């Protein structure tokens, strides 16, 4: 038992390198997902029917089929068409496009949440369309997107575990290798689960900071720091629980 923990300890740097890979993929895929989401949202709101249909098709394609299938498709089928991506690139591409398709709905809803009066004021003031979008509409829509962005970021972190299935050496892949190398059973996954959870807490905390900054900037009430603590109050009054 003690020998086992010693060797687990020896493998720790190897596992930590995996954390680094996992974070790299998370941020790279997210950096792809956000512009994709804006593009798809713009496509869905386009005045050209063809563009609307094309954007809708891409969104349906990525939302309706399983991410695992998409990943295997990028890994096994794309090379047949002469497109050979490294496992890491394939993973980032699929995760980014998949999450971007989901997040495009958030972007669209946020842009639409800007009250009609703001748009009408822009028209009444004869502001150029581009100016109105970049200086009036978008600055108001961005803060609305921040909380769902936080959710999407944590989702992406969990999502990256799938790239281990196409041999990317992330945290999950390395855990599997350690299990095989040491011949130990699944305890290593307990450790890895805790690492993922800690990372998720850190990312969510960082986004909460961003949210507070945005609220301050927009002159709105500043929300509490940790969303986990915020959510802890019970929605049911005590008497209704029979006490």
């Amino acid at each position, binding site marked *: 038992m003690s020998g086992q923990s010693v060797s687990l300890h020896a493998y720790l740097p190897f596992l930590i390198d995996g954390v680094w890979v996992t974070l790299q993929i998370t941020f790279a895929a997210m950096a792809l997902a956000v512009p994709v989401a804006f593009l798809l949202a713009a496509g869905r709101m386009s005045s050209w029917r063809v563009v609307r249909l094309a954007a809708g098709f891409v969104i*349906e*394609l990525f939302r*309706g*089929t*399983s*991410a*695992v*299938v*998409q990943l*295997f*498709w990028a890994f*096994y*089928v794309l090379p*047949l*068409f002469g497109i050979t991506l490294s496992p890491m690139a394939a993973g980032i591409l699929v995760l980014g496009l998949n999450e971007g398709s989901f997040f495009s709905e958030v972007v669209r809803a946020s842009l639409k949440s800007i009250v009609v009066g703001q748009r009408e004021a822009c028209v009444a003031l004869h502001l150029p369309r581009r100016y109105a979008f970049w200086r009036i509409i978008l600055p108001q829509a961005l803060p609305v997107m921040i909380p769902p962005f936080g959710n999407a970021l*944590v989702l992406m*972190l*969990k*999502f*990256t*575990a*799938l790239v*281990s*299935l196409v041999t990317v050496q992330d945290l*999950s892949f390395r*855990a*599997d290798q350690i*299990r095989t190398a040491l011949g130990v*059973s*699944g*305890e290593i*996954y*307990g450790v*890895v*689960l805790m690492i*993922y*959870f800690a990372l*998720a*807490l850190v990312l969510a905390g960082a986004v909460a900071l961003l949210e507070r900054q945005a609220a301050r900037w927009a002159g709105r009430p500043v929300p509490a720091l940790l969303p*986990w603590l915020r959510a*802890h109050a*019970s*929605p*049911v*009054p*005590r*008497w*209704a*629980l*029979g*006490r």
Partner: protein
Amino acid sequence: MSGFSWDWAYALSILPELLRGLMITVQATLLATAIALPLGLVLILIRVAGIPVVSRAVWFLIEFLRGTPFLIQLYFIFYVMPNYGVTLSPFTTGVIALGIYGAARAAELYRAGIEALPPGQWEACMVLGLPLPFVWRGVVMPQVVPVVTPMLGNLVIVMFKDSAVLSTITVLELVATAKDIGVMTFRYLEPLTLAGLLFWIVSYAAAHGVRHLEARHAGR
């Protein structure tokens, strides 16, 4: 270049096998749903009940399950359970893992449903001195269920797509079947594309059903 061009005859020949895989995927999803929806309700009821240590523990469990990848949860259960003398088939293990993961997500949806209830509803019940069982069965549930039903429907669709992860513990569901066919015949284009298509058809039809459900509840 064998996989470059789509071969219809080949695609048709592997379709029955893929449909068998799809059946396993659907079975796993439905069985996991049968665990997730009631277990999620139990979890959230314990969580809001305000029992000193237990409620906090359940709250942490829900957050932990929601904050970690399903793939690793599955591996954990799959490789750790035998240590404690529990040996189940990969399929059963997969269903249990997916059910537990789904329960944590369902619990969050139930909570959102309860939170959506206007505070005035609770206050009115208290002022009228309604008996507690009636408050839950006659006032709370009839308002929470229509809000939560479409969300739970969407959750089932998400679980359907997540069930593809079960392929990693040798459950021969749709994705594993498609991959096996690819390995054996060196043709990946048809099996993987068809697998994606089958996923899309089922989830599209299911999403349509959920929208129908939503419209029916909204119409009332």
